[in-house]
């Protein structure tokens, strides 16, 4: 740009960005070392000024990492190819959005994003943790800094994003075209906000184990962090799945790919944690289990990072891998997970739960949720690692695919969804399940109607589809029944019920929306998973093919040019009963620098189903001019899945605004308040 010849020796302003960023990162490591020692020792010796050191250190750490991240972003935006990372992953022709998203679209930059988010969470505790008991806060910040140290070392020693390159290339090698997509620009930050967000629950768990105390106040602190992390992870997984749907061009939205699983396992564990933390908060029980879940959830996030970054598993997610990085992350894993589980084995038995409960109770239902989620997470983990385990035992090379996961995962989840509608209707401590089931009659009715409707709609489809829709109706209506019960609808005058509805705490709205969101998402998963119609053929201009009652006419394909790619754009006219429904324009792009092709599906989304067309290679075998390989799909109800995910994310956002969370620790801790006031 500007005809400038980059020269590493030049002392211009932008030329030192890389060194400044590198230096800021090294300083952040030093600050983290202080933050990891002083507050922990201070908490052990009960020395308030040592404990207080954690707060400025966390904020300082954040500022330094933000500076480093800002430097790398600046290098990308100005296309400074004297930096290896920029030269390998950027190009001057790339649109600005992808220059910025390119910062984390590679290994080194994504690790920098990882520590940035960790620092954001750490400084959030420092800034907003005024109500936390000082010793707990000091320990949480100390544990956070310990994790950060591991990652700073990892970045500085094995994955330095600021490494210089000489001679300086004229232009860069461009970002992997698959990643040049708006959906994927925000997918990694969302996932990382989720992964790293669980580090908060982890730090609180370790701090609680050191303190030897877990109480309602602790749970009240952990819950919003877990919830925030969970909603980011949910949104991140949703975005990833949506991207796979329209970008990979195979009409699918979930492939049980090891990297997808790496994000799904922490999600399952995090969902369990979210529910068991409620039990700790409300009922002062399941403490040891909740602590273990907090450790496991973050461990699974770290393991996910290991699987993605070490290259021990093959995956469609082609990240550059390097064995030294794998060894480093494995050592980090052993220290963090092994260390925390050892601490758990040592201190865990001292956690005393006071709340007792009968199996049939709200606690019982939540524990059931926990067991199912934990089992599901274990199964997905086993399936993901099985090829590795078998190979390690000399059993040969295999791959575990969707048939295994679908066959095992779905039957585990079905009973949980059945219980899910019932759980919120049960009382704490002990409950009468018959009364609860009787109140669910509208849900029974809805499930029956849904089953009959599904059966009459697609009689030849798999039985699972009917079960899926019935369960979705059962869960959705069951959740509404619980809401109606809570506002005493029909048992009190309507006006009074409505006023109760307005006074519902936002946290319970969160639960209601979360469960309804899942019900809606199940509708989408069932539809797209069981009744998808597909047709793959060679089409010449004018040819038509009929899929699910829609007639797709191929109108030919023309070359078009994008900013950094050349594309073939196909044109389809979709008609139903002679009337034009929509025009679809799928593209097949070839990126100029890498030469790698990508598909952009043409999609028309409706609530009933998506019309989905993909154009492949030009075909010469039939001898017809202008003929192309085309794939046409009808994906019934698939849009419901993303709507459902959005409802779940919205539900957790509503819940996060609950006053209870903002206040944090309850008022029954005047002692803590007094100490806070003193400093």
């Amino acid at each position, binding site marked *: 740009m500007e005809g400038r010849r980059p020269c590493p020796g030049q002392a211009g302003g932008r030329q030192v960005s890389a060194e400044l960023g590198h230096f800021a990162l090294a300083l952040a490591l030093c600050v983290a070392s202080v933050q990891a020692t002083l507050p922990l020792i201070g908490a052990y010796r009960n020395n308030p000024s040592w404990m207080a050191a954690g707060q400025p250190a966390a904020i300082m750490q954040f500022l330094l990492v933000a500076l480093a991240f800002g430097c790398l972003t600046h290098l990308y935006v100005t296309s400074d190819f004297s930096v290896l990372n920029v030269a390998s992953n950027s190009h001057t022709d790339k649109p600005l959005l992808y220059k910025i998203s390119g910062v984390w679209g590679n290994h080194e930059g994504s690790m920098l994003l990882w520590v940035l988010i960790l620092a954001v969470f750490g400084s959030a505790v420092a800034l907003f943790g005024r109500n936390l008991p000082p010793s707990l806060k000091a320990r949480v910040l100390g544990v956070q800094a310990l994790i950060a140290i591991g990652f700073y070392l990892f970045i500085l020693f094995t994955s330095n994003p600021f490494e210089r390159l000489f001679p300086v290339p004229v232009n860069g090698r461009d970002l992997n075209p698959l990643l040049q997509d708006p959906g994927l620009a925000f997918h990694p930050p969302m996932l990382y906000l989720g992964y790293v967000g669980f580090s908060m629950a982890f730090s609180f768990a370790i701090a609680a184990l050191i303190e030897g105390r877990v109480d309602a106040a602790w749970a009240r602190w952990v819950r919003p962090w877990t919830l925030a992390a969970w909603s980011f992870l949910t949104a991140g997984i949703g975005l990833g799945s949506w991207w796979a749907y329209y970008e990979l061009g195979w009409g699918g939205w979930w492939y049980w790919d090891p990297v997808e699983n790496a994000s799904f396992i922490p999600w399952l564990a995090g969902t369990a944690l979210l529910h068991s933390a409620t039990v700790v908060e409300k009922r002062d029980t399941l403490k040891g289990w909740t602590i273990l879940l907090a450790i496991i959830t973050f461990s699974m996030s770290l393991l996910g990072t290991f699987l993605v970054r070490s290259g*021990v598993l093959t995956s469609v997610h082609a990240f550059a891998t390097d064995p030294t990085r794998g060894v480093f992350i*494995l050592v980090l*894993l052993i220290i963090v997970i092994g260390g925390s*589980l050892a601490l*758990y*084995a040592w201190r*865990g038995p001292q956690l005393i739960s006071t709340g007792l409960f009968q199996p049939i109770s709200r606690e019982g239902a939540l524990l059931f949720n926990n067991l199912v989620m934990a089992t599901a997470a274990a199964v997905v983990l086993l399936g993901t690692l099985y090829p*590795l385990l078998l190979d390690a035992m000399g059993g040969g090379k295999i791959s575990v695919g969707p048939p295994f996961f679908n066959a095992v995962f779905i039957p585990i989840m079905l009973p949980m969804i059945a219980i899910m509608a019932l759980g919120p209707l049960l009382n704490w401590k002990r409950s009468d399940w018959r009364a609860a089931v009787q109140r669910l009659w509208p849900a029974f009715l809805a499930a029956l109607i849904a089953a009959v409707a599904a059966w009459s709609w697609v009689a030849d489809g798999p039985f699972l589809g009917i079960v899926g829709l019935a369960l979705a109706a059962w869960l959705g209506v069951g959740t509404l029944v619980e809401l109606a019960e809570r506002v005493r609808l029909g048992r009190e005058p309507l006006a009074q019920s409505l006023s109760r509805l307005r006074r519902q705490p936002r946290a319970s709205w969160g639960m209601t929306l979360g469960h309804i969101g899942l019900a809606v998402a199940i509708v989408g998963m069932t539809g797209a998973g069981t009744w998808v119609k597909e047709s793959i053929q060679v089409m010449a201009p004018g040819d038509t093919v009929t899929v699910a009652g829609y007639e797709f006419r191929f109108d030919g394909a023309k070359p078009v040019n994008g900013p950094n790619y050349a594309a073939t754009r196909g044109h389809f006219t979709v008609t139903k009963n002679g009337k034009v429904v929509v025009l679809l324009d799928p593209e097949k792009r070839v990126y100029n620098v890498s030469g790698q092709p990508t598909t952009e599906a043409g999609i028309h989304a409706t609530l009933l189903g998506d019309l989905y067309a993909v154009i492949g290679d030009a075909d010469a075998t039939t001898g017809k001019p202008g003929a192309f390989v085309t794939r046409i799909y009808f994906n019934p109800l698939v849009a419901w899945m993303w709507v459902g995910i959005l409802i779940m994310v919205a539900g957790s956002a509503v819940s996060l605004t609950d006053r209870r969370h903002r206040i944090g620790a309850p008022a029954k801790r005047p002692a803590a308040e007094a100490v806070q006031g003193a400093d």
Partner: protein
Amino acid sequence: MRGRLIFLLPLLLFLVLAGYLALGLTMDPKKIPSALIDKPAPAFELPPIDGLPGSGFSAADLKKGGVSVVNVFASWCVPCRAEHPEVNKLAQMGVANVYGLNYKDDPEAAKAWLAKLGNAYTAVGADRSGRAGIDWGVYGVPETFIVDGRGRIRYKHVGPIVGDKLVKDILPVIEKLKAAK
């Protein structure tokens, strides 16, 4: 005591898992053993690349005695470009006949590619349809096979021959096969 053991269980399970992960790091998941190892090379007969001299490349070439190397390449494959100097070096060493299997390629592009990067192959066969590639079990380019004097496939290398791979992986196999004869 039993209560304590339950708290220890997660740690023990993790240690087992960590052991497997450590073992996993020592293995390369991309290295998939070929089902054709120690089997005779498939029957095939490929024409030369359009416009290049020579009579192409067929199964008969591999049974002439002497160790052969079959290198699957294409002009559209970037790693092939990276490994090509090493392939040329191997051919010039004269320890084995090095054949090229030009996989699903445009003849003009392949010709230009070989003219630019050098063509040290004993012979090159053009597999435009990819049919011979399927018989050889090719699932990605580049791949390199080592065939003994009797036409049996003895070794398969997946991915580019770069860095120390020629010296560490390819040459020892050739030496061993030559010594065994």
